[in-house]
């Protein structure tokens, strides 16, 4: 078996006095879709952000592609090929859709900008209609699409998506999950997915982790976790 693309080892992190992560272990293999599910405040988003050092790890290690990135500045980590569509989407509100996408592509030196732009418009035709509109005036769903497209514009080796389904109509959720599956199948894109929508996430992912209170409590293949009675009781009953 090959080495993991991203390996999080015994990661601990805190916001001031509040400990958010209490020793998280997580691996993502190249070409894999891995999801972390869990309730509100379990530490899913913190895990994802701490890969970029926000918050910084107080203990443990983060290895990307064989390199220790635990103490690297965020922009250098981004330049290694990690891209994130973060919690709250964080679209630049006073930039146009086009400029937001240009920001995404700037890591890559804008080398493939036109081709990638066309590709994003194929995936999200809505963005093409909104091209000159300011990010802050888009609807929630449009912002979500833009955040994902912006992350993809850098041609990342690992795409990190925090709650891509949040606040979206079921049809749009399905569309976005189909896009992720396609990118994974056709381009071999590795995906790190954080979701509250456990059913969809586990169906899509190769493997999943369940997070409770800053710790991983369960892990397994997506199918196993979907069948697991504990997972069903806690995260799936009445969900879909």
């Amino acid at each position, binding site marked *: 078996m090959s080495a993991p693309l991203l390996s999080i080892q015994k990661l601990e992190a805190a916001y001031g006095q509040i400990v958010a992560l209490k020793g998280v272990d997580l691996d993502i293999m190249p070409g894999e879709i891995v999801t972390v599910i869990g309730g509100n405040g379990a530490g899913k988003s913190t895990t994802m952000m701490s890969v970029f050092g926000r918050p910084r790890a107080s203990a443990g290690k983060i290895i990307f592609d064989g390199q220790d990135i635990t103490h690297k*500045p*965020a*922009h250098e980590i981004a330049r290694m090929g990690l891209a994130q569509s973060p919690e709250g989407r964080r679209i630049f509100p006073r*930039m146009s859709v086009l400029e937001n996408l240009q*920001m995404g592509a*700037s890591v890559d030196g804008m080398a493939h900008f036109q081709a990638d732009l066309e590709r994003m418009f194929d995936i999200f035709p809505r963005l093409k209609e909104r091209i000159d509109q300011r990010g802050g005036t888009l609807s929630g769903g449009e912002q979500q699409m833009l955040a994902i497209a*912006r992350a993809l514009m850098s041609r990342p080796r690992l795409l990190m998506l925090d709650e891509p389904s949040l606040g979206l109509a079921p049809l749009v959720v399905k569309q976005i999950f189909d896009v992720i599956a396609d990118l994974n199948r056709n381009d071999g894109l590795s995906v790190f997915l954080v979701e509250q929508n456990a059913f969809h996430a586990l169906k899509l992912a190769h493997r999943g982790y369940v997070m409770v209170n800053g710790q991983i409590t369960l892990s397994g293949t997506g199918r196993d976790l979907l069948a697991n009675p504990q997972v069903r009781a806690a995260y799936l009953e009445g969900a879909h």
Partner: protein
Amino acid sequence: MENFLQQLINGVTLGAIYGLIAIGYTMVFGIIGMVNFAHGDVFMLSAFIALIIYLAMTQILGVTALGLVFLIVLVCAMALTALWNWAIERVAYRPLRGSFRLAPLISAIGMSIFLANFVQVVQGPRNKPVPPIFTDVIHVTSGGAFDVTLSYKQILIVGVTGVLLLAFWYLVQKTALGRAQRACEQDRTMAALLGVDVDRTISLTFIIGAALAAVAGTLYMMYYGVVNFSDGFTPGVKAFTAAVLGGIGSLPGAVIGGLLIGLIETFWSAYFSSDYKDVAAFSILVITLIFMPSGLLGRPEVEKV
């Protein structure tokens, strides 16, 4: 009528200088949320740098082509002042990033006092006279109560300001550099997540702000024909007023605010009392803060995100 026209010309000239300084305030505030109280003194410093280069070129090297001299003085003053401001940011502000909000503000006030005193010590406390340059004037009207004049200096000031503002606008709106700068202004964390080196971008903001202040400093030195170590304070605070009036954080706002403050000050001096011209300008600051805290073009606090 002649009086009005003359004051309009004078006001726009002064306003152009305020506008150039105000951009430095508004850019730094936009990106790190700090009022850079040392900015006025950076402007004063640049006027001294410009004067020294000017004197060295005309009196020691004996260069007589004034256009060439002006260009070299301008470029050198921009470069050296930018270097100064870059160093100031590294020494006085960057180590305090992530500290409590007032820390960099206090540091900026300290830096302002340091710069003024540094120049006082090395250049002396007395006014430094500047040999006249570009003394020709154009008579716009004649035969009235007095001739309305437009000096070459005034044309130069407005022309140079206009050209540089265009170049600056292009830089901020159309280049990758400017885009990174605006991204940091709107969401520093997200910009870093997209590979933008935030510290470098902040340095760059200080460099650009200083370069524009140096243009103002060079023009100010030529226009008034005298510089003093304390010259950073009043124009600095007025440019800050201009930035607040235009809406702090807004670049077009800074320019419009600068022009308005220049015009208000000039017309007040002409029609009421020149003793109270500073009172007029600073009353604008107070009135703006009370009735229109986000300024003319500033954005309201709440934004749909």
